[in-house]
């Protein structure tokens, strides 16, 4: 039987930035298993970005502050590893892809990280081919960053990170600069990476409806504390979600409303298609 391995673990973890008394994260206890696709939500300033930066070591190595408790990533204490050592375990894609592409061409940018970790030419070659293919950006290989669209830039940013073969991929509001269609394509691409390569994925996203069908875990953070944490299907049902600035997808809100009105469904449907099927079945059943 396959056993689940914990890849990220927070133990009684608290953090505040230096120069500020306010705790940004309060007593966090959290464990994430390998292969999980986690949706992390919460209002602005709730500590999402801070939490993510604790996983790849930017906290405490780049940002100092009061650091209590432990963060363990892939069996090792984050505070004992440097950020660039962790870079081969944790890939971090930031909100603005523009600031993550350093080089004059897509290829050179992907190679940048691989050169940093000192890989030889053959290994760089094979990873380059692999990552270009995996993200479907072979045609962009020699393009300079200013010739790319936002969606393409975001793919290139992921490519640069993915080429390092991390076990965990963190995305901080990756679709905020993308139009709805490109955003959906992008999320499906991430799901593909999760499914194909068993990557553990953590996404911060305000457009929850994009992720209800792809994520399996959902964590709601507010004022530095974990409010809800569990299977996405269970967490998203919660009626109090909107109190935490979570934009509940209409199909979920409708089911909650109908439940209050006394209309009980056996299951909870995450997308319009499944829900309308169920309604149709019932209506025909009534007929």
């Amino acid at each position: 039987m396959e056993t689940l391995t914990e890849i990220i673990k927070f133990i009684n973890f608290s953090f505040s930035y230096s120069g500020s008394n306010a705790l940004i994260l309060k007593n966090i206890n959290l464990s994430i298993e390998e292969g999980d696709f986690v949706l992390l939500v919460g209002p602005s300033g709730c500590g999402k970005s801070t939490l993510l930066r604790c996983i790849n070591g930017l906290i405490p190595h780049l940002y100092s502050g009061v650091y209590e408790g432990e963060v363990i990533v892939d069996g090792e204490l984050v505070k004992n590893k440097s950020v660039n050592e962790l870079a081969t375990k944790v890939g971090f894609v930031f909100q603005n892809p523009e600031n993550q592409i350093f080089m004059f061409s897509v290829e050179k940018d992907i190679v940048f990280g691989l050169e940093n970790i000192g890989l030889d030419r053959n290994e760089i070659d094979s990873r380059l081919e692999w990552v270009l293919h995996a993200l479907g950006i072979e045609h962009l290989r020699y393009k300079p960053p200013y010739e790319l669209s936002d969606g393409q830039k975001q793919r290139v940013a992921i490519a640069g990170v993915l080429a390092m073969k991390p076990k965990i991929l963190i995305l901080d509001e990756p679709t905020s600069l993308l139009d709805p269609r490109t955003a959906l394509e992008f999320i499906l691409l991430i799901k593909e990476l999760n499914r194909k390569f068993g990557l553990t994925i953590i996404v911060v996203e305000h457009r929850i409806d994009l992720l209800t069908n792809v994520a399996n875990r959902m964590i709601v953070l507010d004022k530095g504390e974990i409010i809800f944490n569990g299977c996405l299907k269970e967490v998203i049902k919660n009626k109090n979600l909107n109190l935490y600035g979570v934009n509940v997808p209409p199909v979920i809100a409708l089911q909650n409303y109908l439940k209050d009105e006394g209309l009980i469904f056996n299951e909870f449907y995450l997308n319009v298609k499944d829900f309308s099927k169920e309604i149709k079945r019932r209506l025909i059943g009534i007929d």
Partner: protein
Amino acid sequence: MFWLAEGLVYRRQESIIHSLDPRVKLIISLSLFLLSLFSSTIFEFIILLSAIFLLGVLSKVLRRMIKTITFSLTFVIMIFAINLLVGYDLIFSIIISLRFIAIISSSSIFFLTSSPDELDLVMRSLHLPYDLIFAFVTAVRFVPVILLDAVQIIDSQRSRGLEIEKGNIFKRIRNYIPVLIPLIVQSIIRSEELAEAMESRAYGFSKKRTSYYTLHFKRKDYFVLCLNLTLVVLFILLIHLFHL
């Protein structure tokens, strides 16, 4: 200001010169530069400038090279006038002015025919510290990005009633303060994000950073290099041995 840049900024083009190894282009540019520095007769400058313009024609960048020279004419006239005024004779003043033109146009050969990418490779092949190369690459890479930021800030300040083009010269300079401050702040924020992204991409991971890209001389590079050396030696011999 834009047309000063016009003469120094690389555009993707194809020519015999463009296709050379960037190190060869640097050596050609540098040898013309040094010869201009040490030449002291009008005859020498006529040869040097003809060579520079010939290279301009071969690399199809002559027009942009001339643009740069036209721009620098103000300085040339100033240099010429100052030399005359402080009491040097006409010939000497002309020579100094020609030297200035030769220096500018010879260095523009390299910059007009080599992409920033190639510059990066040249610096790598010179084994410069990677921190320095990286700083250069990102600086060039972010020029268009920051320019775009500036345009956006100007637009937004204009839409709030800022009249940039109004007033005398001092007023105009002061008008740029509401543009510069947000631009600097934005660039600082950007650089912070850049630092985070660099760290997350293992920048500085190991002392033994590998280099995927290396430059290789081709046959034509060797040929051009030899030709360049021969011409330089010939030039020096002709001038100094035979006092042409």
